[in-house]
């Protein structure tokens, strides 16, 4: 029984005022296994993890580490018992070296002095052990996200972690970095470290895990042996119903005669010499790696950042928006990547969020027409089916998918003709994704145009009518629908094209 398991969470319940985040979740982790933990957003994965490390205190339930029973953990207890978490955000200090970060808070000393040489030696050993190539003297800010994550892992191992919990570890990484991370995970498993691996990406779960635990709405659903599970089954277990298609069908409604947006040699905000055309009723996908300059391009079009040269032609007229306000008044909208920081105004109501861009239009002498304000909010709540008890609910209390809908509602209310989506379904669970896709379809079917930035290859190919790929702030390729091919997109995205060579 207990001897087989390094970590056991028994009937964990966690209540917040008014909400039950975890109802009754049990999780058992065997020595030297990788346990995939999956569930939709809001299913309670993060809360469960926080209970393991003492960041949250369970309302009831037991936690056993190596047979020792606890009612609650604390960060210190977790560390003493060898439980470590690799969060999505790292705790590295950019101005310090890799070695110093590894020994952050517990430096090796020689008398009063910090023994830098010893730290660098030990760091080298720790990195070698995990087969990672990092120069211990390198400042962390000069390292890529992938290597920074490796330092976090090395730090946990260096502190004798027996249980390693990884929360969406692949989210910030490029595909090469993901490969390296996989290798480290497999190495750790061989060394007998037990790992809980949380990810939205099911293919990763299949590749790495020995068993998969599914939770839904704060409740334990089931645990499966990985080789016996299928993707469809897992999705069904996570969502609680069957999803027949990933992308809703759409008849092409591209109006080739009407160019809504045209960029001619646009340079600025880091991007160089970008030219493209977007037609009415078209979804133009913008592919590429993170940092390729796609968000930067969106910011220029939306007036959030200035362009240096080139021209933007919108509906036949050259425009040069100096602020988001100007862009919105022209009919251009942006649904940003970071919903919580840039998209929704979390602390105010749904009604106010939807009306925010048009308050000046529904006011006389700056006094708001509150009847109109309510009507408009009500109209878009129905039209795009925002699920909420009342329109006065604060947006921060909505799920990710519903927050995204509120942002979209805002732009529909502002009557925007071109809507730029930056990672439209990031952090949104499987069921809500489908609804967002349906809304995008409705947008283009009503004659609007969509520019969609996406790092998810499947989404890019599933939703776009045409794809343009950026690499290192330049355009490297364009694919028509019939040419869609993930290898080709990856090639363009890594900048290996004739075009790129020419422009260099």
């Amino acid at each position, binding site marked *: 029984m207990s001897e087989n398991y390094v970590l056991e969470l028994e009937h964990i319940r966690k209540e*917040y005022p008014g909400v039950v985040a975890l109802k009754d979740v049990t999780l058992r982790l065997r020595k030297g296994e990788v346990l995939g933990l999956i569930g939709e957003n809001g299913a309670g994965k993060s809360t469960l993890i926080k209970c393991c490390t003492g960041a*949250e205190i369970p309302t009831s339930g037991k936690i056993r580490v190596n047979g020792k029973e606890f009612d609650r953990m604390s960060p210190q207890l977790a560390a003493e018992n060898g439980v470590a978490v690799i969060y999505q955000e790292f705790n590295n200090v950019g101005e310090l070296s890799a070695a110093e970060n590894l020994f952050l808070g517990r430096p090796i000393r020689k008398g009063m002095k910090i023994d830098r040489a010893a730290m660098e030696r030990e760091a080298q050993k720790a990195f070698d052990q995990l087969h990672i190539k990092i120069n211990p003297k390198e400042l962390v800010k000069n390292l890529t996200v992938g290597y920074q994550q490796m330092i976090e892992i090395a730090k946990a191992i260096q502190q004798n972690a027996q249980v390693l919990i990884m929360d969406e570890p692949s989210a910030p990484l490029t595909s090469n970095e993901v490969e390296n991370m996989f290798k480290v995970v497999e190495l750790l498993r061989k060394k007998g470290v037990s790992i809980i691996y949380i990810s939205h990406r099911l293919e990763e779960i299949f590749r790495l895990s020995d068993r998969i635990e599914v939770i839904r709405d704060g409740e334990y659903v089931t645990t499966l042996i990985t080789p016996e599970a299928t993707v469809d089954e897992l999705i069904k277990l996570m969502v609680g119903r069957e999803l027949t298609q990933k992308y809703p069908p759409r008849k092409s409604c591209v109006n080739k005669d009407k160019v809504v947006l045209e960029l001619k040699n646009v340079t600025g905000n880091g991007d160089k010499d970008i030219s493209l055309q977007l037609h009415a009723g078209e979804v133009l996908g913008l592919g590429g790696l993170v940092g390729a300059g796609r968000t930067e391009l969106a910011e220029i079009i*939306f007036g*959030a950042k200035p362009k240096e040269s080139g021209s933007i032609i919108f509906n036949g007229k050259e425009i040069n928006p100096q*602020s*988001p*306000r100007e862009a*919105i*008044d022209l009919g251009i909208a*942006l649904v*940003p990547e970071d919903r919580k*920081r*840039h*998209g*929704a*105004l*979390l*602390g*105010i109501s749904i009604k*106010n*969020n939807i*009306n*925010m*861009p048009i*308050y*000046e239009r529904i*006011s006389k002498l*700056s*006094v*708001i027409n*509150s009847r109109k304000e309510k009507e408009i909010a009500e109209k878009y709540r129905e039209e795009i089916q925002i699920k909420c008890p009342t329109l006065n609910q604060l947006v921060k209390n909505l799920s990710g998918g519903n927050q995204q809908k509120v942002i979209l509602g*805002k732009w529909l209310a*502002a009557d925007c003709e071109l809507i730029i989506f930056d990672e439209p379904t990031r952090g949104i669970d499987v069921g809500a994704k489908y609804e967002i896709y349906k809304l995008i379809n409705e947008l283009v079917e009503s004659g609007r145009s969509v520019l969609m930035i996406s790092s998810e290859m499947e989404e890019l190919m599933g939703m776009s009518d045409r794809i343009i790929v950026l690499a290192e702030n330049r355009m490297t390729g364009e694919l028509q629908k019939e040419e869609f091919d993930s290898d080709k997109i990856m090639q363009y995205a890594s900048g290996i094209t004739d075009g790129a060579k020419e422009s260099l």
Partner: protein
Amino acid sequence: MLNANFLKQNAIWLVFLAEIIIFAIASDGTFISGRNIINISRQVSYYGIAAIGMTFVILIADIDLSIGSIITLVNVVCAWLMVAAGVNMWVAVAISLIMATGIGLINAVMVAAVGIPALIATFASQTVFEGVAYLISGGRPIAGFDSDFGIFGRWSAFDFLPICAILMIICFAVGSFILNKTYFGRYFYAIGGNEEAAELSGIRVNRVKYLIYAFSGFFAGLAGIVLLSRANSAQSTVGKGLEFDVITCVVLGGVSVYGGVGSMSGVIAGVLIIGSLTNGMILMDVSEYTQMVVKGLVLAVAVGIDCMSKKRRKR
């Protein structure tokens, strides 16, 4: 309905009620005598008026430390115009208010256009305009106004209702209207909640900041006129430290120092609490220095409650 939510939302008024009862008992009833209540309404009127502009500023998570200096400068300039330059009283008041609004705009230039943190920008203008007030007055009091000037601070309607209290009530009504009925109010909350997201929702954040600091300057100016009329003489030290009383009222009234949260009715309660606290302590013969200690503690506790509830919300 006496449920938990009702209590939570109106806790501030309960504090006020408790305060009144305590002082009423401690002062053997003097505290709640008609005369003293009128007295309190006069005393709170000027920082009540100044608190409206400060509410807007704190709502966007900024701060305006210059209003004490604005009050001083308005005192000195308005008095100088009336006494030394012989300008008509109403013209002098109008010029003073325009000047106060202008100082607010200067603060806004520093904060919005240049990007100096509000704390530093308004601290700088506090120092500058305090100095200017001294330069104009030479540190000497200016007195000898028209008796009509008493309308702002000393006269009463129907022999009992101070005009300055009526003025404060009108100002609160205007402030509440701006906050709840106009789109500017919506913008204030949006910017206070998340400035970047507000900008990306089409709000011209910088323009709104100009408006907010102009309001803050204007209301401080009006408070200065009331104070000048009440004292009937301009002193170069009159506004010193007043910004702290005003900030205390606003924060005690539930306006979050993190921005985006707060209401005018809360601020009214905050003003009344601080006003009656000051008055009650004077009645009980508490020394000025002890009063400072108490007020400082009140500010710390008010902000402390705000910070703790923020921490709890985060968890």
